[in-house]
């Protein structure tokens, strides 16, 4: 009896997994003795979705890029005749003895999956699957075998540090909150994942929600809290849906509620949806949002461990941090500490995106180098272009140039480059990305998301944004670079929360490593990467032009000439660099440089 498992995370669904699932449902109904159908979350190989796995109990084989049509093939040949389809679509196979094969084997083989242990193999809507995979064993140990102090000691010994970006030692954080007495304490999970380019938490919530619940309940026991909140951003409807199912199932099975597992410990939790504010990923703003207020950060001290949600002692951690906890409890702190570097223990999930060939999630031991992530796992740069930089830490981080690709990714080495580890989003850039424009992009984001409380953040980021916009339009002045630097320093000094304190980072790292690009924009009025439209030349790529005349018809200044079916030409003197030809062209035949 074979199991057919379809990847139904948001990536899979956007790639067309629902149609594949529906077709498979029909085929399975026709062959009920040969196979059963189930679904799973995101295994992380997003670039080959939709993914379908065939598990015969011994061997697991995953096919990529599956359509309703190729699904028929898979059932015909592999399920019914045991005949694997040995072509490019077989992305991964793992035999009973651990031997792996497949066109994308390196992507998975180079990973150490602790947080993602169940993502892509269990049905996230089945608590039975979770338990069968070892779920809630950590909780049993925490409730029945260990004292709260012993739980905290295990977490301390594992070396686990917060995975939300700050990297604060988790065991230490829990011990702070445990030390405060109050009539009510809270466990909060920050599932706001606002960093553009980061989707690690989304995949864990969609693919293995119970791992987060279990981590939170264990935390509750350790710090003596009786209630928890998961604050999940509203842009993740599937994650919220799966969390709701998980909560109901956990309650029914007795893992949540009164007297959990007969231990005398009571704990329950609730989901709160975000409402579209990046700043609510900052913990004090998050608490304000749960309390029903505008999400504006508060001054610390007092820290949340002492006075957090509703002024009660609160422990707040990221999704990924909690997802590590059950594994640490059941496998032991030393097993976790065996991975990683001296000061950055364990593994980290990275979201590879941008111009990388294999975009998706990869969990690797701390200390893995950027180059290994980009080339060995990420498969290098798309379309054979040149690796230019990798952006880490989202709008709070910075760009690390390709020349520093041998930098290990851990909490010590990355900050030395001027970037931050962040929550794990890694956006890969190639030679067509303009570093001035990227700084503008991030400042635009933080400026929009600034809550407005602090003058320097509210107005300072706007001034930085205006300068960067001027640069991308070719109106930059030499003094602008000094202005940017000074603004950056002042904004960092005078901002209350992490948003303002880190908003200047992308611009600062860009100035540090790409001063030449800034100077080209100011002095030469030219964009070397070809991205800032007012500063480049437009031309038609001969080999791609089909002569369809659409660009000429749409050009507002009639700068394009050419007969139907003939290569068109853009007159440089007339061209106003508006970009209409690019949006009109169905053949990607317009070049900007």
């Amino acid at each position, binding site marked *: 009896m074979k199991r057919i498992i379809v990847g139904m995370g*948001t*990536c899979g*669904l*956007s*790639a067309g997994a629902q149609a594949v699932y529906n077709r498979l449902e029909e085929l399975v109904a026709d062959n009920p003795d040969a196979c059963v159908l189930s679904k799973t979350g995101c295994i992380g190989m*997003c*670039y080959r*979705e939709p993914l379908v796995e065939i598990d015969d109990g011994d061997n697991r084989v995953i096919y990529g890029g599956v359509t309703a049509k190729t699904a028929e093939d898979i059932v015909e040949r592999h399920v019914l005749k045991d005949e694997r389809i040995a072509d490019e679509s077989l992305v991964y196979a793992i035999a009973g003895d651990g031997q792996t094969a497949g066109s994308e084997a390196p992507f998975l083989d180079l990973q150490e999956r602790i947080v993602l242990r169940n993502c892509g193999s269990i049905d996230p809507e089945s608590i039975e699957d979770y338990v069968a995979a070892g779920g809630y064993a950590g909780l049993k140990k925490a409730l029945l075998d260990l004292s709260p102090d012993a739980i905290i000691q295990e977490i301390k010994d594992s070396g686990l540090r917060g995975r939300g970006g700050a990297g604060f030692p988790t065991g230490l954080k829990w011990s702070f909150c445990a030390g405060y007495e109050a009539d009510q304490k809270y466990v909060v999970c920050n599932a706001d*994942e*606002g960093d*553009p*380019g*980061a*989707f690690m938490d*989304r995949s864990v919530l969609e693919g293995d929600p119970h791992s987060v619940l279990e981590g939170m309940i264990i935390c509750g026991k350790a710090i003596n809290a009786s209630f928890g909140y998961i604050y999940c951003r*509203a*842009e*993740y*409807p599937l994650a919220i849906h799966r969390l709701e199912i998980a909560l109901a199932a956990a309650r029914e099975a007795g893992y949540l509620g009164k007297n959990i597992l007969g231990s005398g410990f009571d704990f329950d939790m609730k989901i*709160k*949806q*975000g*409402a*579209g*504010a*990046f700043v609510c990923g900052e913990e004090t703003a998050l608490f304000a*949002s*749960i*309390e*029903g*207020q*505008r*999400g504006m950060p508060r001054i610390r001290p007092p820290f949340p461990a002492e006075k957090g949600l*509703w002024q009660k002692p609160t422990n707040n951690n990221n999704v990924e941090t909690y997802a590590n906890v059950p594994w640490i409890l059941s496998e032991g702190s030393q097993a976790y500490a065996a991975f990683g570097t001296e000061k950055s223990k364990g593994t980290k999930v990275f*979201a*590879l*995106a*941008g*111009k990388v060939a294999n*975009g*998706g999630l990869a969990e690797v031991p701390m200390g893995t180098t950027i180059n290994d992530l980009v080339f060995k796992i990420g498969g290098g740069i798309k379309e054979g272009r040149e690796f230019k930089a990798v*952006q880490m830490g*989202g709008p709070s981080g910075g760009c690390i140039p390709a020349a520093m690709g041998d930098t290990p990714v851990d909490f010590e080495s990355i900050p030395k480059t001027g970037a931050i580890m962040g929550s794990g*989003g890694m*956006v890969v*850039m190639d030679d067509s*990305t303009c570093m001035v424009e*990227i700084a503008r*992009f*991030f400042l635009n*984001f933080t400026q929009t*998301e600034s*809550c407005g409380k602090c003058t320097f953040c509210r107005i300072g980021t706007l001034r930085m944004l205006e300068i960067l916009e001027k640069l991308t339009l070719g109106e930059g002045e030499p003094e602008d670079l000094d202005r940017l630097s000074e603004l950056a320093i002042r904004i960092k000094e005078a901002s209350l929360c992490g948003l303002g304190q880190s908003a200047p980072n992308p611009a600062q790292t860009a100035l540090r490593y790409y001063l030449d690009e800034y100077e080209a924009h100011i002095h030469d009025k030219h964009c070397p990467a070809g991205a800032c439209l007012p500063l480049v030349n437009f031309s038609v790529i001969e080999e791609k032009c089909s002569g369809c005349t659409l660009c000429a018809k749409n050009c507002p200044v009639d700068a394009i000439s050419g007969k139907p079916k003939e290569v068109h030409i853009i007159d440089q003197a007339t061209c106003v660099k508006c*970009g209409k030809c*690019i*949006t*009109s*062209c*169905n053949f*990607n035949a317009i070049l900007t440089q």
Partner: protein
Amino acid sequence: MVSKQENFSYRLWRYDGAPGELIPLLQSAQDHFGYIPRRAINYISGVTGIPESEIYGVITFYSQFRLRPMGKYVVRVCAGTACHVSGAKMITETVEEEIGVGVGDTSEDGLFTLNTVACIGCCSLAPVVMVDDDTFGSLTPASTRKLVKKFKREASKQQTAPTETPVT
């Protein structure tokens, strides 16, 4: 599944003074009406005792809440980092051309509202557009045009009722 009609009224009815309910109530109102009309603010204020001005302050802080009705289809172009480097700007311009509105506006026929959103979390499929709850990835200006046209065709097959006008 409880219908949306009951959801909002039911939530108001069973409000018991529990703290932190304002945002869920606003989300419920928006699910029900499609936006937050003045009278919803009025109802919530009456039931919770929170002044209307404070509620208005919360509504205007969060980008999810809208004080004006939206179109039948809410188009959200992802403006996250990965989508940005993969050409999201061109996608936005293409959608603007096809629908005939700028970002933040609703088309005259009430069919489409266009917004950008910070990051949908589907970065490996960049550039990405969401229409209501469906996500579409790996777009080009050409495929985006096709997508919008598809929704236009679907909409013309159904009747669209006139939308309620806001009193703000």
